[in-house]
């Protein structure tokens, strides 16, 4: 691929004076090379001089609407906040309120963010906010802010009476926009770099957090019993 790119750059170097008097069509067809690659191609100089002649409209950046027509981040998560549940009878237990919130395109790796998201899962909000103060990771501030925003939303818009009476029912990470970059290697080779973004999603629910968010830890006796049960319930094929 780098060979092709190099060829393009050379082509541009040669063709620049030749094309200048002619109509802009030819130049524009060359200029379709995204802006992301510009500095790599020619060390910046040529691309600057070329762009002076061109009409580099908004349609040439990495965020060009033409190329990202359907790239509109997560949309479904906040829609859950719009569901209206049917009224309850007097004898029913009141339904627990919940709020969904998210922060999209955080400049942080989703892989790293996972650790933070999984860490706060199943905690009460106060506990999570307290703990996140001591997490020395870049994404922790984003998570903290998102939870705080969600908490405020819950109290203001969703009829939650006490802001401390919330726990983190869901907390997960999505992959956001990824920009490809280049890294120089020896002997004219190159490596790929990915500049990743991530989305952070959280759902706060009213009430006390459960004692065990994940499966309840089992005693050795329980594990043994379960294993025994499993063994005995096996089906032996072609047997009586």
């Amino acid at each position: 691929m780098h060979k092709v790119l190099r060829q393009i750059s050379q082509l541009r170097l040669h063709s620049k004076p030749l094309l200048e008097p002619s109509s802009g069509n030819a130049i524009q067809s060359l200029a379709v090379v995204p802006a992301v690659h510009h500095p790599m191609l020619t060390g910046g100089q040529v691309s600057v001089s070329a762009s002076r002649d061109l009409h580099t409209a908004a349609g040439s950046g990495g965020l060009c609407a033409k190329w990202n027509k359907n790239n509109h981040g997560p949309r479904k998560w906040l829609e859950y906040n719009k569901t209206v549940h049917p009224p309850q009878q007097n004898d029913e237990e009141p339904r627990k309120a919940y709020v969904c919130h998210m922060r999209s395109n955080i400049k942080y790796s989703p892989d790293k963010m996972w650790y933070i998201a999984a860490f706060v899962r199943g905690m009460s909000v106060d506990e999570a906010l307290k703990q996140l103060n001591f997490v020395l990771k870049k994404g922790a501030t984003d998570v903290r802010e998102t939870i705080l925003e969600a908490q405020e939303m819950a109290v203001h818009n969703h009829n939650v009476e006490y802001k401390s009476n919330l726990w983190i029912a869901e907390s997960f990470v999505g992959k956001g926009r990824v920009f490809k970059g280049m890294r120089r290697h020896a002997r004219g080779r190159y490596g790929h770099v990915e500049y990743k973004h991530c989305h952070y999603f959280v759902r706060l629910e009213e009430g006390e957090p459960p004692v065990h968010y994940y499966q309840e830890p089992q005693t050795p006796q329980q594990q043994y019993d379960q294993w025994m049960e499993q063994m005995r319930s096996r089906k032996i094929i072609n047997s009586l």
Partner: protein
Amino acid sequence: MEKLMSVKNCLKLVQLLPAPAMAPALQLQQVRHRQTKHWKPEFKRLRKQKFVKIDLPNFREKAEDISKEEMRSRMKERGVLPPRPWMERPFHISCTGGIFEAYVPPEGDGKKSLISSSGAKQKLEFLEKKSKSLMAVRKIRSYEESFSTDEFGDHAQEIYIAAHTHMAAREKYKIREFVSERCYPEMMHNVKDKTIHWRFLQSLEPPRVVHARVTEVITKENQFAQVTVRFHTQQMLAIYDRFGRLMHGSEILTKDVLEYVVFEKHISNEYGKWRLHDKIIPDWLPPKQPAPITYRLIEDVIEETPTQIEASKDKVEQIAATSIDSNDASTKSSLAI
């Protein structure tokens, strides 16, 4: 991991040492040591150069944080023209912006005796205003021949019921026929995520027209008529939040409601309709009972600096936001006896 170990060691130290000896050490600021240092720091610059620099867009940037000059330079860079200033603003007047010469409901409506001095005074004032109302009715009749104050009460009640049932059903398109543009946001604000059960049970007294006014907007031919109708009815109201929990009112409780409702019609418009416009809430009405939820009391602090004022404004808004539901809920039964 090393960091964790060091923290653990520190904790051990704290446990081992006697309390008075540790006291000054614990006061110290916590110091973080960077553990990600490269083993060959002298080539840091060269290593950095291996990466081809690309400019990443800042997705977390907000439009309001960008300064004007910054925006200008960016638009220049991309060759985008600034938006054309649009000085004209088309607007369509299909209703007036409020009540003109509002009717003032008598204090303690229906409870005050005519024989008392204040009661007699009120009666006199009404007589003065009545002549104006009669003139207005005559004017309305010149545009709408079939208009009569006796029959209008029933028609108004139909509109009233239709508007409120559509509001409870969140029929945002159908309600437009029965509610003026001024009233629409007041009725439909905050009903989006709620379930409203509203029933009109019966009319205790036949609705009657108490007040009528006609005004012109911009030109002389452009006439608007407003008629105030007194309703004394029995209603049921229960408001549930998004999760189906009862927020306000009750399904089994009927309430007597006394209301002065203003209806408006664009009389110079051939296809104009009588629509619900506003409700008159008198000054003497006692404050509404707050919703039975916990509030956060924030004391108002008087400060001069603008930043602090803004902060206190936020606080006030917080309170307002918590109490808004209760307000909205009780707008309908504005005068509960």
